[in-house]
Structures are given as C-alpha cells and as structure tokens.
C-alpha cells in the first residue's frame, strides 16, 4: 500500500505548482474544485496515478473513492501514463457515422498501442473520446491536443508512420 501512494518520486516543483493551484482555486465547495484540480494535475504530470489522486483527495478533504470515481468516469482522465504522442479518436455520433471505428482500429494497429497502455517504444497511446465538438470536421482525431479533421484510416496510418520515422531518425 505504501509504495502505491508514495508522493516522493514525483517532481516536487510540479507538486508545489499543483498545491498552489488548488490552494488558490476559488470554489463554493471542495467538490466543485475537484475537476479543475484533476485537469491541472493531468496537465502537469501527464496522467493521474493513484498517489496523485489520493494527494488531491487529501488536499480537498474528499474521500479517495470519490476522486477515483470521477477520474475513472471521464475518458479524458487517464490513470496510466500516456505516450509521447497521445492520440484521441473522437467516437461521437458524427465521427462514428463517418467511420471513426476504422480510424481507431488502424491507429491502435499501426501505433501498437492497445487498450489504455502505451506502445512499447513509449511513443504512442491511443484512446477513444466522446464528442469533442468539431463535428463539421468528422472524423476527428487529436494528437497532443492538436486537431486533425476529415481523417480516414489511411491518413491515420500515414501520420503515425511519419511520426515514427521522424522520431527514429
């Protein structure tokens, strides 16, 4: 139990930034501050391991179970580390109709990243997300937050292969 919740291995400067953010966040109640705090933490650390969730729970005086409930509910929050390139394939209605599942399957196959875990080389992680609000560009993919519109499975493959080449060059 102890190692799972050990905060010492974290970058302490980032922990301080997170604590300052939580400390200065103005909210009606602690529950209201939870999602902003998680968002900030994921921005700083890339993902939300158990120790970090517990740390936030303690800072906000909320039960760890409730924090974990929120983190595991939203597809946006990740409990495992993401690859250098985090690919999110939108599976909202418009993207779905336009063939998002082909894009998703191709991305997983070419990147070698299945489920929540990242690829062996640490370059890629692939996940599906709910509607990101860019339905006019369906099917939509974001890579590290940058939006790529009107992507089919072939485009997806091309992007991943060229990224690999650049990285391995």
């Amino acid at each position, binding site marked *: *139990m102890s190692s*799972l*919740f050990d905060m010492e291995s974290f970058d302490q400067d980032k922990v301080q930034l997170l604590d300052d953010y939580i400390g200065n966040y103005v909210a009606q109640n602690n529950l209201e501050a939870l999602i902003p705090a998680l968002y900030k933490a994921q921005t700083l650390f890339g993902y939300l391991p*158990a120790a970090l*969730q*517990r740390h936030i*729970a303690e800072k906000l005086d*909320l*039960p*760890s*179970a*409730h*924090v*974990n*409930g929120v983190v*595991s*509910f939203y597809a946006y929050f990740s409990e495992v580390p993401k690859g250098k390139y985090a690919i999110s394939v939108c599976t909202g209605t418009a993207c779905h109709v336009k063939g998002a599942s082909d894009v998703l399957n191709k991305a997983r196959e070419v990147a070698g990243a299945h489920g929540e875990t990242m690829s062996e080389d640490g370059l890629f992680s692939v996940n599906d997300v709910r509607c990101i609000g860019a339905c006019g560009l369906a099917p939509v993919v974001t890579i590290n937050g940058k939006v790529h519109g009107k992507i089919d499975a072939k485009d997806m493959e091309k992007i991943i292969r060229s990224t690999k080449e650049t990285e391995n060059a």
Partner: protein
Amino acid sequence: MGKEYSSVRITINNITLEVDHGSTVLDAAKQAGINIPTLCHLDLHDLDAINQSANCRVCLVENETRGTLVPSCAEIVQDGMRIQTDTKKAVQGRRTSMELLLSNHPKECLTCVKNLDCDLQELSNSMNIKDIPYQGEMMNHPVDDSSGAIIKDPNKCVMCRRCMTMCDEVQTVGVLSPLKRGFDVSVGTAFHLDLSETSCTYCGQCVSVCPTAALAEHPHVPNVWRRLNNPNRHTVVQIAPAVRVAIGEMFGYEAGEISTGKLIAALRRLGFDGVFDTKFGADLTIVEEANEFLERLNNDGPLPLLTSCCPAWVNFIEQKYPDLLDIPSSCKSPQSMVGSLSKTYYAKTMGVDPQNIRMVAVMPCVAKKAEAARDELAYGEQRDVDYVITTRELGAMIKEAAIDFNNLPDDSFDDILGESTGASSIFGTTGGVVEATARTAYENVTGKTLENGEFETIRWMEGLRKASVTLNGRTINIAVAHELKNARKLLDSIRSGDSDLDLIEIMACPGGCIGGGGQPFHHGDINVLNKRREALYTLDKNNVRRKSHENEQVKTLYQKFLGDIGGQKAHELLHTSYSKKLRI
C-alpha cells in the same frame, strides 16, 4: 392559511388528492393507498438518510400529462399532474427495467446468503417475472473477502447506491464510489483496493441496507460447526444484549420480542458447553470504566472519556483522529472481556484446559468479527474471542439444526459469567452505556443510593444529545452520539478545544447495537429499531438490580480472581490499547 401555496392537486389512477408541495409521486401514491414497487429507493426518514438515486427504474409510472414514463421516487408532483400506475405502459416499463436488472444478476438464489430475505428476489416474485428475455454479457468482478467482516461481491450489485448513502451521509466514511461507467461500472473502493486497506470501519450499515447480497457479513458459521462437532473442544458462547430482542423476528415474532430464554435453550441444543451473557461483560465494563472515569476526573484528565465498546467507532477514531487516542476508555469491549475471562477465570474455576476452549460471540454487529481478530485482544497465545457470528447467522444455524425455536422452554445462563443487571441491558441502545456508567459513577462518588436511575434526557433517538449530572458539586457534562457523522461533530469540537464534555458515548450504528449491521434486516422500517429499543428498556426496568456494581457474580469475580477494580490483573485481562491506523 396559505395552504393553497404549499399543497398541490394531482390525480393518481383517477383518484384526485392534495399532497404537500415538493412531495414525490411515490409519496403521493402512498398517501392514496396505492402501492408502487421500488428497489433502489430507501427512505430512512428518521435517520435523515434518503437514497433517491432513481437508478433502478423499477418504480416507473405513466405521467399522462407528458405521455412519458417517470421514476415515481424522484418525480416531484406538480399541480394538475395526472399519473397512472397500473396502465399497460407503466407495468411493462417496470417489467422491462426489472428484466434488464435480472439479466445481469447471478441466478444462484438457492444458495445465496440472502435467499428468501432479498429485496430483488421478492420484487421479481411480486412482479410475476417467470422468464428473462435478455441474454447477454454478465458482470465479472473479483469478490473481496479481505476484511474478515464484510464480503463484497460486486457481481450481485444492482447499482442502487443505498450503501453509499449509508457510508457517505450517515457515517461520513466514504469508502465506496461507482467506478468507471457504462457496462464496466461497479461500486467499489478507491483504486479497487481491498476493503481491509481502506478506512472502512466495518460498521455494516451498507450490509443492512443492501437489497441483494452484494454486501454481506463474512460467514463464521462453518468454523463454529467444526468446533461444535469436535468433542475434544470445549466450545462456549456469549450473547450480546441486542441479539435477544431481535432474533425473534427470524422466527415470526414481532420486533422487540424478548427471547432470552429460548435463545439460551437453542444454544445448549446446538451443543455449546457454556452459555454466557455478554451483559455480564457489560456490567464489568461499567465497573472498570466508571473507575477509570473517576480516576481521570480526580487526576485532571485526560477528559472527556470516550466509551470504547463499539468496534466500528474504535476503527473510526484510529483512522481519522489518531491525535485523540488518549481519550477513549482503555476498557476492552464487553465481548472481549467475557472472552478473556472464559479462558482464564472460567477455565480455572471449571478445571478446563484453556487451550481447548473456543469462544464464540453472537453479536448484532459485523465489525465485532474484525474486533475479535485485533492483535491487542489476546492473552498470550489465546485469542479473547475466536469466532463471531451475527444475529442473522445464529438464526440460520438454529434453523439448520431444525430446532423448533418457537416452542423451546426457557433456559438460563451459566452460573458463571451469566448474571447481569438492568444497566447492562441498555448497552444495546444508544445512550445506554453512558446511562449505566452514570448510575455507577454517581453511587461511587456520592456514596448515596440512586433512587431513579433513568436519565430521560439521554434516552431519545436524536443523533446527538447532551445532559449534565452533578457529582458532589461538580457538574459532569455528558454527550451521546450515534451514527459516525454525529461522532465526527463531537471529535471535531474536542480536537479544536471547544468541548467542555467529560463523558461521551459513541455508537456507530443508527440507534446503537439494536440497529447493528448483523441484525435481522429492517427492510427500511425504522420502527423495528424503536421496538427493539423499548424491549431493552423493559429488560432494564424488570431487573431487580439496575446498577452494574450490584452484580453479585461480578463482585465474586473481583473477590476470587481479579483483586482490585482497575488493579493489575484487571488491566492485564480487561484493558487494551489503540494505535494509529493509516488507511485510504
């Protein structure tokens, strides 16, 4: 006046009625004498706990005004609303909800611990479901039996969230949450930790409201049968006060039926070699605790003294308030006192080898199972208590042995560890321990005889109550709390230094042990707790001796075996210690 603003006119099944503004359709239907089936809904009004998650959709009714199905437990009445509860659409809607729930529920009712006592099963029967048309993937989550007190089987969960209402709102412990979503959702602990790694206090209130067997007690019955069937073992048993006023419910009696005599007879027929009363331990606890209280009072603290009989409450303070561990009484619980004496005093008196004695405790509680396993509660190699079974488990054993409980002749406890006073009866209800302590402390300090030992002000069911008693000119401030949310208020005020309290009793469960997690299920009827409580006060009133220090067997115990009250031997056998427990 102004009534027209606070009431609403609605029509249910063509019956027009006026109901309070803000009522739900379910409330209104009840008022009109119309039954609507419910599953997730739980209204423990007197405890300020209402589970209104509208998750199960079993209470769907037709809102004719809107032409839609609505969950009656959460739909708020509006003026002119027209509701039908028995149209084809409403009945079919409810049936579909139920069929969908059942399609993802194990069909092992015959061997389930909740068989014939399950809300889901009962509902399936009353809704006349004979076939489940939906076949699909079933949940597959690991079963958690890590705690030794509560077994959590998420595969039997219907996501009603009643457990969370108890854990979050009544107990403010919050170890459960829905995790993930959609088909993958389960109600679990943070990071899927074992229950034993969380700050679960094992109070068992989740068990007492779970409509299925997703949360149930960890069974000790097989171990008890093994000991009873082993002729080389000397197996003894003790019964807690709250068990005798509740077990009758399992045999068709009204709640509050006092069945002590039948209970003892049943235990003897099951083959126990000694039948003791936990109430003897309660009297002993009072004698030791009153002494400890007066010592602290005369030596400038630490005060307040907190009673320590409730194991869930002890778990709570060890986990959440480790800085306050000097204030709980060092007295072991009555269960543990009787256990420790059974293997020392009883063994010596009867000439039985203590190595061969196994002590079984029958408790209204699931946390007592975890208490019995505490490292501190042993004397050398011998555990004070070896197995703990709940009121429900004992009822099941009596049925299993085909004992005709209802026609049993009354029997009585053993002559050793068997006598008890009225004061010990009320241990089983909130306020009882402190009332019993006050009776004994009063006589010890003043040297006067207390004529009326009934402290009415601390006898109510409110969550938090205060009273004062004067002892030789000094005012003693007393507080009583039940439910951990109320305990938390007291502990916060002690921590911040705002408390002027001297003596505090805390019980984790609503109403005290009468409402314990091991009791026959109340199925949402809190009146059951009131009846059990009244029965305990009756037991107190009918006892010739109503003060713990008047217990003759307790006096003999000190004379022959323990020596002084609060003395060295008493400390060895009857006192314990607490330590900080870090949990998630």
